């Protein structure tokens, strides 16, 4: 690069100040939450400014209390997390399988109704979902599903299919078409070709979409609140945590619960990263 493009000194100072401030803002609150969750409740109340726990002060009991069942003197977050995992994983499975086919068709096949499908999916993706909450609630109550995790699953699959389809369509569009054509000419049927040729190359895209879908289902709060608020045994993790704020629950326990809810997300990102890199390199083979 030419010297004319090197930034001047004040610009550089400004740049680093900006980066530092942004880092403090992005990481600071999370760090604060983690540190507070390790301190005893009384210490937090007495000295709110003293956020770094002393070595002897570190106390993991908030995590235990948060996760344990109510019958064992805890707040039952373990079960809420399990409910959430169940719904989120089922959502990912159903939504992804449904989308692989649909997305491939929209991306590659020339058929009547293709433009219509693309258009309607984009429209649904952008439409204010909250407007449909009222009739969805009514329909599911009529079907007797509005007080169950299955009802929630139906809602989540419906909410994530358009997003997932749209994302995967873009991944499929970026794949080299020649490989697929060669496979089809060699006598592969379309389903076999999808499974043996397209999926292995598109794996990073599929994994990325799956993570996105998982995050939507894992984070979802509104429908859980609308459907399940009266049934404590079926609360999902976000709903459970939010509801606990209304009881007299120590803030350290709430923070411990929040950190616990974050762990699966981080784990998935960590695991998927290696997987996605492997998928990428496998796809790059000549």
């Amino acid at each position, binding site marked *: 690069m030419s010297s004319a493009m090197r930034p001047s000194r004040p610009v550089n100072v400004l740049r680093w100040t900006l980066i530092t401030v942004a880092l403090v803002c992005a990481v600071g609150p999370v760090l604060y939450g983690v540190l507070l969750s390790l301190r005893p409740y009384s210490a937090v109340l007495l000295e709110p400014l003293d956020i770094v726990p002393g070595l002897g002060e570190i106390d993991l009991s908030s995590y235990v209390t948060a996760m344990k069942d109510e019958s064992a003197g805890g707040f039952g977050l373990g079960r809420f997390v399990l409910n959430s995992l169940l719904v989120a994983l089922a959502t990912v499975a159903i939504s992804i399988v449904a989308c692989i086919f649909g997305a491939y068709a929209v991306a590659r096949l020339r058929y009547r109704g293709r433009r219509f499908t693309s258009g*309607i999916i984009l429209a649904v993706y952008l439409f204010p979902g909250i407007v449909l909450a009222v009739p969805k609630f009514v329909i599911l109550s009529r079907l007797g599903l509005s007080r169950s995790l299955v009802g929630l699953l139906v809602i989540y699959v419906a909410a994530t299919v358009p997003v997932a389809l749209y994302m995967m369509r873009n991944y499929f569009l970026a794949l080299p078409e020649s490989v697929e054509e060669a496979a089809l000419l060699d006598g592969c049927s379309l389903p076999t070709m999808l499974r043996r040729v397209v999926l292995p190359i598109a794996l990073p895209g599929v994994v990325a979409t799956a993570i996105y879908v998982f995050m939507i289902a894992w984070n979802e709060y509104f429908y859980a609140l609308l459907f399940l608020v009266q049934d404590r045994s079926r609360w999902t993790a976000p709903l459970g945590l939010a509801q606990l*704020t209304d009881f007299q629950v120590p803030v350290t326990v709430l923070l411990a619960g929040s950190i616990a809810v974050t762990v699966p997300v981080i784990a998935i990102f960590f695991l998927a990263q290696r997987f996605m890199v492997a998928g990428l390199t496998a796809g790059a083979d000549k």
Partner: protein
Amino acid sequence: MSTPTRRSSRWERLSRSQRENLNGQLLTGPTLLLIALVVLLPFLLVLVFGFSDTRLIDIPRLSPSTIEWTFDNIVDAWQSDAFWDALWTTVIYATLTTIGSIGVGLLLALALRRPFRGQGIVRALLLIPYVLPVIAAAMIWRTMLNPQYGIVNAIGQEYLGWQSPVGFLSTTSTDVAGLPVPVSLLVVIAFEIWKSFPLAFLFVTARLQNVPGGIEEASALDGASRWQNLRHIILPQLRGVLLLLLLIRFIWSFQNFNDVYLLTEGAGGTQVMAIKVYTELVTRSDIGSAAAYGLLMSLVLCVLLAGYVLLSRRKEAL
């Protein structure tokens, strides 16, 4: 190859494009059916609820012949102050969070553009607010802003000379130097910017990596200043991605429920449209009114979006 069965021979008699047509329709069929069931059907029902006098208890006996059509719900909503308050709050909320998150994301993407040691780690750390589950983020913010043990009030009282703790999540308006400041609304806006700037940051960073380095270098050699470079070379390249972000962020912020409700439950003047729909439905059990609010909300969004499209078209023409 084995001898073709009757089924495959019939399949093979179709031309390639006919086969492709069938395959396409077969593969997208289930998705379209699902969308019809969970999006189009509810949408029709929302119209019915919005334009009829239907209560929750009437639902089991609902049939086309028993519906009493009326404009009452829409008219009532239109004429109530609560609707206009909520709409105004929503527009402010959506506009400020959209501009804020894109502005911050753009600034950081530009600041982090030139490679340096640890660039990857810094980028990854900046994504934390976006990856963090909303519930965890809201819980941490609620703790930080708590009047009794929150760190913000502790710092304010210890070092900044605040007389009394500030109820950040329940103060509709307070006077700062004679000007009314909507504290809670600003807090939920700040929260949303904090939570969503990484998305803009990611989009812009990805686009920046595709800006060819040659043009910039050429313009620099021709004597363009850094500012001119940014203004005339880089920003025009980012136009597309910024417009896209503007659109999707506004649509999402406009209908946001979770992030606001988890922080304030609608207190302190933060009752946005989505929360209004929820309270009409749950607290007041009034599905007609809830549907009317929802419909008006989508109507306003459509009008705003149409205006946006027209404006950007006209600018293009100039």
